[in-house]
């Protein structure tokens, strides 16, 4: 049975005082992240396990995180571009042979 490495995304919180949560936006590179990109509500969490969002889909991603205030306004993006994420474990080694000398 293979073991998939956990990949955690984290960030320091916003300085604004009326923040009620954060949202994560993802795009497959080279598409740039915008407020229309697929998003995931992070609630109050400032870290998230990417495996739970992306499953085992390998790829190179553009990632953006925004803060959200109590009126639903979203901040500018905190961005990380061209992030290679590898969730698929390598295939197992081939047939083992033992040679007696």
């Amino acid at each position, binding site marked *: 049975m293979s073991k998939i490495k956990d990949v955690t995304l984290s960030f320091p919180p916003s300085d604004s005082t009326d923040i009620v949560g954060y949202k994560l936006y993802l795009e497959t590179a080279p598409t740039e992240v915008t407020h229309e990109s697929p998003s995931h509500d992070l609630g109050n969490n400032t870290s998230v396990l990417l495996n739970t969002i992306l499953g085992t889909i390998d790829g190179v991603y553009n990632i953006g995180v925004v803060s959200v205030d109590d009126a639903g*306004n979203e901040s500018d993006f905190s961005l*990380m571009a061209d992030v290679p994420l590898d969730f698929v474990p390598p295939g197992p080694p081939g047939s083992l042979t033992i040679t007696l000398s």
Partner: protein
Amino acid sequence: MKKLLKVFLIIGLSIFLAITPAMSAIQYDYVTYYMLTSEDITLAWTNTAAGVITFDVYVERVEWAEIVSKYTGIEATEYTITLPKAGLYILMVRAKQDLTSLEITSINGMDRPSLLQFIQDNNIADIVGDITELTDQEIKDAIISAGKASTWSKSTTHGVVDGADRGWWIYGYIAKPGPIVIGSTRELIQVDVIWLRDTWANM
């Protein structure tokens, strides 16, 4: 009939040509200043009145047409604030002055219509509040407590902000989170193991 139509057309065209440049002038004389809600903004002004003066700074949320913050009794000619939330704002300032003993004597001798006129002339209706249920004496006390106030100078008033011939809106937006960090749980565990090893070695 045709002559009349022609006259109307000429008048209409003249009005349109006169209004259009004025409208575009108003549009270009306003600037929106963008800032984070976590940033400080300093409003400064000059004192144009003599005597002991304090100032009030109010923050109006434009979308709600509502005063959302009031800072009163300011003695300096500048004040630093932060915007309470994301949105479009106008900053406004007015001067306030206590009444002289002569003015207090005068107010104590006024009838109700004169008191109402005094409130209007001295821009203190919002300070005195609703007076419909008050007796004349209560109104006099409220006026004496309120003092006199100037009209408001607003950030959207031409020539007030930065001495430029234009007004300012202030738009506050929320701060983004800090820089993203991506790491693996395995690496975090590794750090813990190293910390444990070092701690153990130092014991």
